[in-house]
């Protein structure tokens, strides 16, 4: 090497030595000062309101119960991780809300929230205890020929009953400072603009369209579960959960989301009843209710338990098993199914068949987790130097989705090879989250591992 070349090389090294700490300092500063992008559209604005706006109430936000890190729902194991001063527990530390606002025991033990759906005239006696439904895939779930159906019984929103109006009712029920519930004193009502933004955000969550079943699944048991699910003489699941969604199709075309009395209220030994706490019967839709509840989507079911409006059943296997039981088969819906059946049978499945349908739902859920993780990782990979905070948020959410997919498959003893890939993908995404220089490469590796995992579950299309 000539002296001239050596000198040039030496200068480059010196520049690198000077630049490296400079880049490091700049990146550290960037990580500290770069905040998520300011709301630039309706969805971003809605997200901000959903997670941060208390409407001058008791401190709760929509995100208090619909946690992003818990699939926009909440369950007892997640509740157990929250600090004592979390606004969820406002009834435990706000004297004005100590009585007849929540039942802290049922909330902590079973994830149940108090609702006064038949009016606020007799708070001591007229209330129901309901779980928190996730708010994913609402674009495909709440429309019916008769209008929108929100909440567990399809009548969750005041005003015109739409998803847009839902937040107004939620603020009155759950955000109030006192039980007087005076607008402008105990809370402020959401503005028209806020309702628009909240609706846009909620509609952006999760799936934007229904699946088209059957899927080319690989696992023997989930595959059989899918057959049973779609068999209108055996599982009959697809009649009310068309394509594992939240709409009904009895053969005459899709009728959208519908309400049914499936007898969940008649289940014996419901956990909340066993607790000895007051748990009045829930009469569902209307005032007084007619005993019906609306149909939730099933793709997102496996990682959003406990199940049904009263969190009566903890596992997806148990939830499928419910339809084989007496409570369902003696209910108005069960009897209708039996009437339409040539052999007069409602739904009758054996243990292996129940597990197979549950396995199918677990795989559907895992595929949705993977789809969302890929979407998040691909968005992350596109983020630039200045968008580090947003990027880290995307990676964190992707990790959470991957964790769900692992839990859902593992919980059913399904697809261990896929689980191994998903574990690797999760670790890579976690590393990407904490890395600066290798973020892009690690994210790409995580994407590859996710795709490898997906291939184990379903034939490539």
């Amino acid at each position: 090497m000539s002296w001239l070349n050596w000198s040039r090389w030496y200068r480059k090294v010196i520049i690198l030595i000077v630049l490296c700490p400079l880049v490091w300092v700049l990146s550290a500063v960037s990580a500290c000062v770069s905040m998520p992008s300011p709301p630039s559209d309706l969805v971003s604005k809605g997200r901000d309101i959903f997670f941060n706006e208390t409407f001058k109430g008791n401190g709760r936000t929509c995100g208090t119960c619909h946690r992003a890190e818990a699939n926009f729902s909440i369950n007892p194991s997640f509740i157990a991780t929250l600090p004592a001063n979390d606004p969820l527990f406002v009834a435990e530390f706000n004297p004005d809300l100590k009585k007849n606002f929540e039942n802290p025991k049922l909330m902590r033990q079973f994830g149940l929230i108090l609702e006064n759906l038949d009016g606020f005239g007799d708070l001591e006696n007229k209330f129901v205890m309901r779980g928190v439904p996730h708010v994913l895939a609402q674009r495909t779930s709440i429309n019916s020929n008769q209008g929108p159906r929100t909440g567990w019984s399809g009548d969750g929103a005041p005003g015109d009953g739409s998803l847009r109006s839902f937040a107004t009712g939620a603020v009155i029920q759950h955000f109030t400072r006192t039980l007087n519930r005076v607008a402008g004193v105990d809370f402020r009502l959401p503005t028209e603009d806020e309702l628009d933004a909240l609706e846009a955000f909620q509609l952006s969550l999760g799936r934007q369209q229904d699946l088209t079943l059957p899927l080319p699944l690989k696992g023997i048991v989930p595959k059989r579960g899918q057959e049973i699910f779609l068999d209108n003489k055996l599982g009959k699941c697809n009649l009310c959960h068309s394509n594992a969604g939240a709409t009904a199709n009895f053969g005459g075309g899709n009728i959208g989301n519908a309400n049914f009395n499936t007898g969940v209220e008649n289940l014996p030994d419901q956990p909340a009843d066993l607790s000895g706490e007051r748990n009045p019967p829930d009469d569902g839709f209307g005032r007084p209710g007619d005993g019906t509840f609306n149909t939730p989507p099933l793709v997102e079911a496996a990682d959003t338990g406990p199940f049904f409006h009263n969190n009566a059943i903890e596992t997806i296997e148990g939830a499928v098993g419910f339809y084989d039981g007496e409570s369902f088969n003696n209910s108005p819906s069960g009897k209708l199914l039996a009437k339409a059946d040539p052999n007069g049978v409602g739904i009758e499945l054996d243990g292996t068949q129940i597990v197979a349908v549950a396995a199918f739902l677990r795989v559907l859920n895992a595929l949705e987790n993977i789809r969302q993780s890929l979407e998040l990782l691909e968005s992350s990979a596109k983020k630039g130097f200045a968008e580090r905070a947003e990027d880290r948020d995307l990676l964190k959410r992707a990790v959470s989705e991957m964790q769900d997919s692992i839990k859902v498959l593992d919980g059913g003893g399904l697809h261990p090879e896929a689980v191994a890939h998903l574990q690797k993908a999760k670790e890579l995404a976690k590393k990407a989250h904490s890395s600066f220089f290798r973020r892009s490469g690690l994210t790409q590796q995580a994407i590859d591992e996710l795709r490898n995992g997906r291939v184990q579950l379903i034939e490539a299309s």
Partner: protein
Amino acid sequence: MLNCYLRLAIVVVALGGTLEASGQQATEMFIPIGQSPGLSNKESVIGTLESVDPGKRMVTISSPSGAQTVGITDRTMIWLDRSEQKQPNQNGVINDLQKGRKVEVKVRKGEAKAVAEWIKVQVGP
């Protein structure tokens, strides 16, 4: 022959499996007159009570779009809007519907005659 599940669909519809979706009444009573989302100034009638006939159970509301007479049934909810006094809203009765008071009325859909589903009436201290 009709497919058995098509028959089922007909039965489900007949028995109310596809009940008309509706707004929740429980929380509606706490929403001040004119602020009901998606309803106020769109589907509901806001105006003043021009006449009240408790015997016939009819009220006439005068609003910018003209006078409208609606019936009251046992299912009609009447709520006293006391939000201007910063007091909690309450359930009311037909006698609370007095001439000259400001009201908001939601008319029940699908009825042959105009029947109120709920009436919010503004009351003083």
